[in-house]
């Protein structure tokens, strides 16, 4: 039971991170390599607001979300907007990696190198379920991820903004001709992605500890989850995240700890090669032909 809950909790965080990567990918066709750093800033800033400004959790989280929204907008303005047509150049790879490194180094100077003990939700309360000790924090990780996923789906499917996102994802040029300000839509997607990153950071930080390197290990797994499920696809992000969480937990039981990631990534490669519903559904190799219904 404990293994299943741990797999689902870890998988939910991978899913949230994959969702945030997908939100940006769906409208820009680029992968935000600075995303791990944005998550870290969400966690570090909320930690400092909780510990030093003595704020309550909700206020600290709201401010951390705000900080991340501003940071994501700055990343977009500085590292993406000026590059022009993103489907025809790959300079964004360097600018976004660069942005990530700058953010990490700044965080190291601001917050120091020592990992911090980030508080669990509900003070780390543990409840017994079927003889296993399950942390309420883990259950919250799953619930929060599911709620964010559902809310995002409703926004995408039922609102004008969602329709605009789908239009930009499907035919960026045509949507521009129809009066949709695609730059604004992309900017808002960056902001949403930053907000989701702040929440992911606060949920994962009690487990990884809050530090400027906290996403070095899990960041790559978010990309793996996004690829397994299908980049730019909300449901795919959740399928990819939960699958990766389960694969890791099973690998933990059958191979020595150091080989867990190798097994996970081997399975990721097989999935990407064998299942066209993964990476190919997002048309990574057929840029500009996204299926808007799959956002």
């Amino acid at each position, binding site marked *: 039971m*404990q*293994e299943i809950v*741990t797999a689902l909790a*870890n998988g939910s965080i991978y899913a949230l991170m994959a969702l945030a990567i997908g939100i940006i990918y769906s409208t820009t066709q680029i992968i935000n390599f600075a995303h791990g750093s944005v998550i870290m800033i969400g966690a570090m800033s909320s930690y400092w607001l909780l510990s030093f400004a003595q704020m309550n959790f909700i206020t600290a989280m709201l401010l951390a979300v705000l900080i991340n929204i501003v940071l994501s907008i700055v990343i977009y303005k500085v590292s993406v907007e000026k590059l022009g047509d993103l489907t025809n150049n790959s300079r964004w790879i360097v600018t976004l990696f660069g942005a990530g490194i700058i953010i990490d180094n700044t965080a190291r100077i601001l917050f120091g*190198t*020592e*990992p*911090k*003990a980030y508080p669990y939700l509900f003070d*780390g309360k*543990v409840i017994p379920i079927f003889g296993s*000790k399950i*942390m309420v924090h883990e259950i919250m990780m799953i619930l929060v991820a599911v709620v964010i996923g559902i809310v995002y789906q409703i926004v995408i499917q039922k609102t004008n903004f969602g329709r605009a996102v789908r239009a930009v994802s499907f035919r960026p040029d045509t949507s521009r001709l129809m009066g949709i300000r695609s730059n604004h839509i992309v900017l808002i997607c960056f902001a949403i992605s930053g907000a989701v990153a702040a929440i992911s950071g606060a949920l*994962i930080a009690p*487990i*990884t*500890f809050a*530090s400027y*390197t906290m996403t*070095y*290990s*899990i960041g790559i797994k978010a990309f793996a989850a996004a690829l397994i499920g299908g980049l730019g696809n909300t449901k795919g992000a959740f399928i990819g995240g939960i699958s990766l969480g389960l694969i*890791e*937990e099973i690998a*933990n*039981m059958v191979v*020595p*700890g*150091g080989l*867990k*990631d190798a097994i996970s990534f081997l399975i990721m490669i097989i999935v990407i090669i064998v299942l066209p519903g993964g990476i190919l559904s997002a048309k990574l190799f057929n840029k500009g032909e996204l299926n808007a219904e799959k956002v």
Partner: protein
Amino acid sequence: MRRKSAVSLSSIILSMTLLFTGCSSANNDKAKEASSKPKEIVIGNIGAMTGSSAVLGRAQSQGVDLAVKEINENGGILGAKVKVVNRDDGADPTKSKTFMEELVDKEKVEYVVGPTNSTPAAASMAYLQQNKIISILPIATSTQLISPNNPYAFRLLPSNEIQAKAIVKIAVEEKFKRIALVADTSALGTDGMSVMEEAMKSHGVTPAAKVTYKADDSDMTPVAQKIKDAKADVALFWTLGADGAKIVRALERVDYIKDLEIIGYTGLNMPNFNELAGPGAEKVNTVTPGSWALDPGKTELTGKYWDMYQKVVSEYGEKAKRDTSASMIASGYDAVYLLKWAIEKAGTTDSDKVKAVLETDIKDFDSVYVKSYAFSKDSHEGFPVDELFKVKIGEMAYDEIYKKAD
């Protein structure tokens, strides 16, 4: 035609050989002449003074500077002033190797203190050996640095091997029956696991479990579960602080921490370990040099070690102000005094004679870091296994001096 070319080539090689041999013997004569009455003794001090390992390099430098200041105020070594040339390798092996070549070729250093980190030390060690430069390693701990391949290298801090021997010895002597070994899969962890296994073998004990994990992994529950499944009564941790703390938390979750004792190597120690590990930190111990740990009920170290601590505090301030470890400063300080003592005892700066003194007469050296270094012709590991003591992690006085268990 071909024969003529071959003859000419042979003549050139012969002439060059004679020329270099001549130069070399002239240099050797000069070196011998200068070595008994040196005008100046140049020591290279190299380590990470910036970057994430900066506290190590700064601690070493503070120790070196303090010792050199005192030595020069008191007449130097063999009447010669001591000059220190500092280099910051930032824990980068490439930089370290380049700096070491520069120190030897351009700055003409005769002795080296450092590097502080193991990988840079490994990268630059060969050049020092080729040039017969005695290097004292006050901080780097990788087992491989001290070997017959590096005959001019001497280490002061307890190496990984010494630490592994110490924690295994403690576990065996305290009559634990089922010992689990825990290490990550990095080079450091693999080295640690291997030296712990060797130490276990020497005691005729088989580990109940060998548990490995990827460093910096977020979920340590499987590590804790494997320790629990093995029914271990003690776990020997070769883990860095944050990972160790995560495993302790995971052990609490799988409900096994109360049945377990943990003894970790010095890498486990970090300032906020107890905060990260939570209540389970109560069950965690580490090892520390006995001379730099407080005896039960005492507030001061014994004799010369307390004097040294006071000297560090008066020169560089309290722990919070200086950030560096007082015992590491003492180790850097010892490195320079060790060279002074060996050079004066040998009566020359000749590296082979100084090396021989370090190998044979070390018991006469008055250290401020250990009771007595253990160098011999067979081993250049200075730290004696018996001088490592078990202490409860986080139980410190003055934010840096461990308290020995009752």
